[in-house]
């Protein structure tokens, strides 16, 4: 039986390099999902607070569906559904083709969609916290609708939405663990491989759990820095 430190060392004997690669995948998946989710979430929030009822309805259907489905099921629906859908399109041109959908992209889309439906609620409540007068002031000095949004509303919106979004980021970081189920080599999958090979399941899954905890703590520190930075900007005004 090898010692714990050998198993957790870097190199052919230990598993630290494999797990480090898993950390890289997890973090890059979360970072890649974030802008996608924020963008869709923002658009959904804009649609939800619009006066046009059809737009609101469409946005409400979106959030009802993706907040109601389990994240894992959304992931499978995207992964297998996209595979079957694309395959059928490709088969029209080439009957023998078989399509393999990239699990990273599937994970990104599924997690982004889930993230966006929660983010839209955060943005929506931030929108409601911004007084009407801010828009009217923007229009009064001759800014267009888009300019008002970008120059007047958005800077305030970000500040109000930041705590909620920070919370969603921590949830996203945890949800990335689900992609191990569709074969992406994230932290949990690498730990699982190591556990199977070495028969030291508690050690490796415990280690993986601690890495997630470390990522959460690091994120909290980073979020704290961003919040302080934004708070300083607030004071300068």
């Amino acid at each position: 039986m090898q010692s714990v430190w050998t198993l957790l060392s870097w190199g052919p004997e230990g598993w630290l390099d494999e797990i480090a690669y898993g950390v890289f995948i997890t973090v890059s998946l979360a970072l890649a999902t974030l802008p996608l989710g924020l963008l869709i979430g923002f658009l959904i929030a804009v649609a939800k607070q619009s006066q046009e009822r059809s737009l609101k309805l469409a946005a409400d259907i979106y959030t009802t569906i993706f907040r109601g489905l389990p994240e894992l099921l959304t992931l499978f629906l995207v992964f297998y559904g996209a595979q079957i859908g694309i395959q059928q399109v490709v088969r029209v041109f080439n009957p023998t083709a078989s399509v393999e959908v990239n699990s990273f992209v599937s994970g990104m889309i599924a997690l982004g969609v889930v993230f966006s439906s929660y983010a839209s609620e955060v943005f929506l409540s931030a929108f409601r916290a911004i007084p009407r007068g801010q828009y009217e002031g923007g229009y009064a000095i001759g800014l267009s609708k888009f300019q008002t949004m970008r120059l007047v509303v958005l800077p305030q919106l970000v500040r109000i939405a930041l705590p909620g979004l920070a919370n969603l980021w921590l949830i996203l970081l945890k949800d990335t663990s689900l992609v191990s189920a569709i074969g992406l080599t994230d932290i949990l999958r690498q730990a699982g491989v190591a556990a199977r090979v070495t028969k030291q399941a508690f050690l490796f899954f415990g280690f993986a759990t601690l890495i997630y905890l470390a990522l959460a703590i690091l994120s909290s520190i980073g979020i704290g820095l961003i919040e302080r930075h934004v708070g300083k900007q607030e004071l300068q005004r």
Partner: protein
Amino acid sequence: MSAVDHPAATEVLRPPPPPRGWPRERVIGYILVFLWALALVGLVAYLVSAWKPDMFWRYAPGYLSGVWVTIKLVAISVVIGALLSVPIAYGRMSRNPIIASFAYAYVYFFRGTPLLAQAFLVYYGFGSFRPQLDAIGLWSFFRDAFNCALFAFSLNTAAYQAEILRGAIQSVPKGQWEGAESLGLPRLLTLRKIIFPQALIVALRPYGNELILMVKGSAIVAIITVYDLMGVTRLTYSRTFDFQAYLWAAIIYLLIVETLRHAVDWVEERITRHLRR
């Protein structure tokens, strides 16, 4: 909207009338609603065309038992979590730094790590301690995947519920405690008769959300070989390679979650009747 078409200042300010005709927002909105309708029609058409009676009769009982396992898992772990959350919330509010930091560490650990990792840690990880568990007679409990999931879920939801409970109790103003004290009520009675009823109103929505999160989160037990709704779905898909397996699961999950959401809305409506004006 530009500054020009605002009403003159002497008039009574009214909200602008909803725009008529076909502004861009309406066009986009109609297109999106149309796409959703198309997706719904497509889904129904697909499910009708892919309908196979023999397949339905072979797998429908499995789905029913899957739903039952999901409900059982969530219900039991939420109840155990609620019981566990009381001492943890008490610890979080305690003035004793050792108890407080221990409770904080517990909550931070379970809220900061993925539920899936916790489930793996229990299901696969506890196998490393088989001799020790055998010695105290707990191995037969942890050998079963359902029990492992139950164990991990209970501990996990206890951490979340403790935070909900703490937030709700602390949201009740201090004067309520002081008022009860001046009437000579003992602390426990104060908690039960005065603080809890007020805290419950604050806590109801977060509790409802936690319940919904647990229903959704419970899907991950499929990965540790529990045949809940998701597990049955995966099994069905691996046997038939028929995509409608997942679509039916999606419909059932949506039904469960929407029912719960409306139930919470209804209860909230009921218990805040005295606050309505």
